[in-house]
Structure formats: C-alpha cells, structure tokens
C-alpha cells in the first residue's frame, strides 16, 4: 500500500508545484509581479467586498408599475376600437398585467372579443363572466417585456455606475424582478444610490451642417462630443443646433430589427403623437442633413454627448421611423438599448444594502490573517507534540493544503471574504483530522503487534473509508451552504468546500508519499508514533 509508482510520485509532485505557481501571484510584491506576464498577474484571488471595501445593493425593479401604465394605454385603445364598432363599454379597470373591460350590453360579447383579439397579436382577450372581457398581454409577451425591462435597467445601471469602465461592478439579474449590484472600492454608498436612480435625458437635435471648422461658433449652435457606439467616428466632436426637435420623453419605443427588403439590421423607433408631429415637420425641412441623438446623463458622465448622427432620408411622419446604416445586429441592439436608456424603465428600490469602508476591510484582513496564523500555529504545535515526526509531516501537508486552497481559488477566480478566511482557519483545524485518523490507526495497528511497515500500510488503508465518509458529509453541508447562501457566506462555503477536497489530496496522497519516502530511506524497525 505504501509503494508509489514513479508516475504517481511525479503526478503528486507536479500538482504540488502547480499549486505553488497558481498561488504565488497572491503573495508576490507588486514590483516583482510587474515583471511577469499579464495573465499571470491577473490570476489572483479577488477580495470580497467585505475585505476590499465596497457596496452591495439588492434592487427591486418596479415592473408592475410599467404594466399598470401600459394597461392604461390598453384601455384607451380598446375603447377607441370598440366605439368604431358601436360597442359601449363601462369603466375599465386594471387587473394584474392587463385590464378588465365591462360591456354595457352582454349581447356584444362575442363581437367585442373578436375585435379585441384582432387588436394585437401579443394581446390575449377572454371573456370573464357574461359581460366582461379581460384584455392582457400573453404570458410570452409578459416574460419578454420583463426581460426587456430588466436588461434595460441593467444597461442603464452599468452606464451610471461604471461610466469609465474601470470599477468592475457586478450587475446581474436575480429572481424575476431583482438586480444585484456590487461595486468594489467605493467609499460613499449614498452617492452611488443617488446616481442609480437619477434621470438621464435624451433629445433629438439637427446637426449644423453649415458650420465650417475655424469659424466662430454661432449662438444657435454648440459643439458636443460625438461618442459613436463603434468608436469609429471620424470627428470626435460635432456641432449641433441648440433647438430640441423632440425630447426623449416623447420617444416611446426603440427596437433593433431588420429591414423587410434588404434584411439589414436597422433600428425602429416610435414617438408619442405630439413628438411624431414635431419630428415629421423637422425631418421634412431637413432632408439630407444629419440628425443628432444627444444623451445627457449629468455632469459626472461628461455631460451631454451625441451617441448617433444618422442622415435624414426623407420626412418621417406617422410617429414611426427607422435608422438605417451599415450596422451589425450587435450594434443595432446596443443603439436601440441606448435610445431606450434615456431613463430607467422602472423605479429601482434598494431592498438590501451592505457597504464596507476600505479601511474597515483592511482591518478585517488583518484580523483574519492574525487569527489564521495563530490558529495554524496552535494546530501545528498540537500535532507535533502528539505525533512527533509524523506531526511535522502533517504540518507540511496542512501548509500545502492552504497553498492549494489559494491555488484553486485563484484558478476559479473566486472571491475571498472574511467568513472565507474563517473557512480556511476551520479547514486547518479539520484538515489534520484526516492525518489524525491515519496516525491513530497506525498506533492501533502497532499496538496490535504489527511490524512498522505493515502498521503504516494498514493505517493508511483502513482509515480511508472513514476519511472519505467524513469529508463527503461535511462537503454536503458546504455545497448546500453555497447553494443557499449569499455574498460573504458563499465565500465561506467556497473555502470550506475547496478545503475539504484539497484535504483529501494532501492528507491521503501527499502525507502517504512523504511517509513512504521516509520509510524507504530510514527503514525503521520501530515506529515512534
């Protein structure tokens, strides 16, 4: 049992070496790291918000109110259509995502149903009782809109939280109507909260095509930065007329879609009635000129900027229009999102907030490190006192265990949190358990009169089932903790679970290898354990 084939020995050594290499970037000083390749520098453990400082928000998106607003629009639409067919309706009321339309005369029911069903393919109409009709978006449509609202909120959040693209925020959907937002390294969560819910403004201006470079700026125009989505704008600045043709509040929708004839990606958009009328006049007068779409997200984002400047091909009337160009699908998606992202589609409410100042994080790292070192030292003293030379071997194994935990976490790009450090301390305490099981078994076998070699072999062999069962059961607790936990607790579950797996390697394979090598050289007649 003690014998290792050559390839086995080498595999174990290679794994150890790899672990050291993977864990190394976490401990190297910055000036040494700078010499190493970038990918290697980056392969480090991320510190969790509680250690690094930063803010964690759980935001609830008020999707209901969006549906409520849409429902009000539905009522008007339904009333108008039914009136055309001479069907009188009572006071309609919103219900859930749709509306209930009561008919004055039950005899109209089937006719009304037919009309309402023909209204829009994304709508469903069904009779409720004998004189009421429920008109609501279909299940698929509700899901689609929810997804759209969440996506749009996330996009707006990203632009507001991370305008420079440097803060590495985590923004993800959680459940049906929530967004998790984590921003490392910010000191003032209040400021962030204010930024999240502020309003951005979108406006359509005409480009001043008469302006010549070198000319002084006419009073009716202004120079704005041009931030093309593709980053290919020839001129990073553009001169636009100050007069707003249509404001973003009049833009009701913008979608990425495809041209019916050419099948090229385009963006379609829709205005309110008033907005449509104004847009119709302005485009009619300015065919061949460029239309500037200006986004204003407040001074901290560089103020107003032009996000797109398509050429007007003809007068655009009827409240609908399209923007064509040599876009890719990805680009039309992004631009449509931008057009919609003038404002958040729904109010975001902070329902959970956790923020930690950077200096507190530094304190936590210090406390955690001290606790870990003292804990490790105490365990080491204990093991050496009880098992002598074998204790030293187990201390080596546990040290490797910690190195491996760091290596695995670096490779997984997992976050280390304060409870995560607790997990490592606990792993140090529990990792020696496998060694204890083996050593105690060796002592027993030795007491039963076995020779040194046979006691060693039997010790390792017979302790195995207990080690595996014990670690798997604890691993179950660790994995469930990971599944149900959130934030820092997950960090604990990660280090605990990783630690249990690495324990199997270090206690069973590495310790066995060390014992076997030692035995091969020392050939002791008596085991001093």
């Amino acid at each position: 049992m003690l014998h290792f084939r050559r390839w086995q020995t080498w595999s174990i050594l290679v794994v150890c070496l790899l672990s050291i290499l993977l864990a190394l970037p976490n401990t190297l000083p910055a000036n040494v790291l700078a010499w190493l390749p970038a990918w290697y520098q980056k392969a480090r453990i991320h510190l969790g918000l509680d250690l690094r400082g930063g803010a964690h928000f759980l935001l609830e998106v008020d999707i209901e109110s969006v549906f409520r607003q849409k429902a009000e629009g539905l009522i008007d639409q339904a009333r108008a259509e039914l009136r055309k067919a001479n069907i009188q309706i009572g006071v309609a009321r919103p219900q859930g995502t749709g509306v209930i339309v009561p008919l004055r005369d039950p005899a109209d029911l089937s006719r009304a149903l037919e009309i309402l069903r023909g209204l829009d393919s994304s709508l469903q109409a069904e009779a409720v009782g004998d004189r009421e009709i429920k008109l609501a978006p279909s299940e698929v449509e509700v899901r689609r809109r929810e997804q759209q609202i969440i996506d749009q909120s996330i996009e707006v959040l990203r632009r507001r939280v991370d305008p420079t693209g440097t803060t590495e925020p985590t923004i993800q959907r959680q459940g049906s109507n929530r967004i998790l937002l984590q921003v490392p390294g910010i000191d003032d969560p209040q400021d962030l909260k204010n930024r999240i819910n502020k309003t951005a403004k979108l406006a359509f201006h005409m480009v001043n095509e008469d302006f010549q470079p070198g000319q002084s700026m006419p009073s009716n125009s202004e120079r704005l930065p041009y931030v093309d989505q593709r980053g290919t704008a020839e001129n990073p600045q553009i001169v636009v007329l100050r007069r707003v043709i249509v404001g973003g509040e009049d833009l009701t929708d913008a979608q990425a879609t495809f041209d019916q004839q050419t099948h090229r990606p385009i963006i379609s958009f829709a205005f309110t009635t008033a907005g449509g009328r104004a847009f119709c006049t302005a485009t009619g007068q300015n065919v061949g000129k460029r239309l500037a779409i200006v986004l204003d997200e407040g001074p901290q984002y560089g103020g107003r900027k032009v996000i797109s400047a398509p050429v007007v091909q003809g007068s655009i009337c009827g409240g609908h229009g399209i923007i064509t160009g040599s876009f890719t699908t990805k680009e039309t998606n992004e631009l449509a999102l931008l057009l919609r992202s003038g404002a958040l589609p729904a109010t975001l409410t902070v329902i959970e907030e956790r923020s930690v100042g950077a200096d507190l994080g530094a304190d936590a790292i210090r406390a955690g490190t001290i606790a870990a070192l003292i804990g490790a030292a105490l365990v080491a003293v204990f093991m050496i006192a009880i098992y002598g030379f074998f204790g030293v071997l187990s201390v080596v194994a546990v040290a490797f265990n910690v190195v491996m935990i760091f290596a695995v976490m670096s490779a997984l790009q997992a976050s280390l949190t304060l409870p995560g450090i607790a997990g490592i301390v606990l792993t140090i305490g529990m990792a020696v358990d496998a060694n204890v099981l083996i050593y105690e078994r060796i002592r027993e076998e030795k007491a039963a009169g076995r020779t040194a070699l046979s006691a060693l072999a039997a010790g390792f062999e017979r302790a195995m089932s207990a080690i595996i069962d014990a670690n798997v059961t604890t691993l179950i607790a660790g994995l469930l903790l990971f599944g149900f936990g959130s934030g820092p607790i997950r960090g604990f579950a990660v280090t605990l679970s990783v630690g249990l797996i690495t324990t199997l390697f270090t206690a069973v394979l590495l310790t066995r290898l060390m014992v076997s090598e030692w035995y091969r050289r020392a050939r002791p007649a008596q085991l001093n354990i």
Partner: protein
Amino acid sequence: MPLHLIPAKTNFDFLGKRIPALVLSTIINVLSLVAVFVVGLNFGIDFKGGVAVEVKAKQGAADLAELRHVLDGLGLGEVTLQEFGSGGEVLVRVQRQEGGPECVAIAARLLSKSLGPEFKLAAASQGAGLALTLPRGIDDGTRKRISDATGLSEAQLPRTGSGVQRIDISADQRAEWCQQVAILAVKDALADKYDFRRTESVGPKVGSELLQTGIIAMLATLLAIAAYVWFRFEWQFGVGALIALLHDVVSTVGVFVLFQLDFSLTALAALLTIAGYSINDTVVVFDRVRENLRRYKRLALVDILNVSINETLSRTIMTSSTVFVACVALALFGGPVLHSFAIGMLWGVIVGTYSSIWIACAGLVYMNLRPERMRGEDKPAKTEVAGR
C-alpha cells in the same frame, strides 16, 4: 517520544451512562425549543430587517451615553449600541422601519434642514404616497439636493412645477424607502464626530426571505447528510445521525438564545458548519462500528458500540482539540464579524463530539440494528474482547 493525550487503550463504559445522557440531552433540547419560542432569538438585521451602521469616533473613545441620547432623539424606534475594539468603534443597530408617519416626519426634518424650512414633506392624504411642497419651480440642482437629503430618487421627484406635488409610491416601496431614511438620519446625526465604516440595511421583504431560505438550507442539509449516511451504512445509522444533528442544531440555537448572541447569516453558517463537523465526528465512529459489527459477530451491540467509541476516542479528542483551538483563535482575534460565528463553533465542537457518542450511538441501541443480539444488552462490557 510523542505524547499520548489519553491512554492508548481505554475501556470506558460510555453507553452504560446513556440513560442519564439521554435525559440530560432531552432536557437541554426541550429547554432550547421552549426558549426559542418564549424568549426568542436575538435576530440580527439579516433576518429581522433594519439598519446597522458601524461607526468609529473621529477622536478618542466613543461617548456611549451621548450617542444613545442623540440616537434616541431621532424617533427611529429601538436603537441598540454595541461597543467593541478599543478605538471608539460602535455598532449602531436600528430596528426595522415600518414605513409609518414617523418616518415621513424624519425625512421632512432632514429636507427642511438641508434645503430650508419652506421645503416640506408630508404623507399624502390618501394611500402611501407623499406630498412634497416646493416653494419655487424645481430644477436639476434642487432635485439632486432633495434626493440627497431624503433618499427619494430623482426619478420619483416631480420634473416641473412648484407648490404641493404628489409623489406616488406604494406602501411596500415606502417601507423600503424608510430604511434609507433611517440611514440618512443616523448619518446626519453622527457625521460631525464619527466616521462610517460599514452600513447595512435589510428591508422588510428581504429579511423574511433570508430567514425562509436559511431554514430551508438547514433542513436540506440535515436531510441530505442523513440520506448519505443511510446510503453508505444502514437506515438505522441515517436515523441516528439525523437525531444527533437535530440535537446539535437545536441545542446550539438554545445557546444563542441563552447568551442572546446576534443571530445573523453568519450564525446560520455556523449552524450548518456545526452540522458538518458533528456528522464528520459521528461518521468516524459509525465507520468503526460497521467494521466491528463484521469483526465481532457474537458481541452484544452495546459492547460493540462501546468498543468502537473507545477505539476512536483518542482520534475524537485529538480532532476536537485541533478544531477547538482553531476556533479559539478565530474568536479571540478574528474581529467582531466572526465573533458570534466562532462562539457558535466552539459550542458546536463540544456538542458535536458529545452527540456522536451519546445520541447517535445510543440511538443505534434502540433501533434494532442487530435484534438477535439485543438480549445481551444488560451484561457488562467484556473487557477481554476489546483486548483481542
């Protein structure tokens, strides 16, 4: 020569004391359950909702009496203060805000203080909405300042107009907003003398969800572990392990009630870890029981259990000791966040070790694990067999 913590060969009659042990455990567990329902756990904001702000005095030590006076005057309901460390660090906890009229009054005070007395905020006459009084037309700058002062988002504020403006929010949104008002009120009151190091706020909705998920996680863990043990051993072992785990969890909860330790997400993690540790210990003993059941075909079950416990005793004590010292290090040096976790774990190590012997193994005695040998139960343990 290495030390031996206990003699290499012991022969304690552990299960001979199983009746008093079971009685003791039953009493402790019943008391724990009663305490949970009568006294109640000291839920942290994770489960109850509320606000926690960790502050540090800008100079010298924190004046707790003054802090209490200032914070009690805010009208935020129950405020608890907990001092820790030596550098004037205090954890301020404010109870969950229900979104009542008091909170609107506090927000109104903050608004007037920041923008002037002509700005007013009141609850709307109907529903959960708010009525904002603007002395002049609103502009972007004012909107931002109102938002900074009251925690209302700019999007919720009117875009134009002056006079009394209605802000529509639902009752739920108002309750969540009131949490933000509480944070603003605490920060406003303490900003002169204290730095804010950590802010946590859990709204009413999330709090109850976290508790629910926590309970589900707990039950799922216990059942999954029991199922694994059943799969690897016999069903009796699974049941024994489950009872032992329940025993550990319930009595640890009892300890949290007894010392009124902060029961937070971290404490829940401690509970799950205790379950993991306890089963670790139980499985090691079970593993030996299984081995000895095969080896000693004629021995009474109680004797086999006793022999197994004795054989694994030095390992049990050794591992418990190493985990215990690691947790002591955490409790002493790990800082305030890990404190309740570490205390819980210290108890867990003791109770987990105890339950492996007197609950899990004692449970096996009563579950017909080896019915044909049950008659031998009352005989004293045979020492000569253990020495074989």
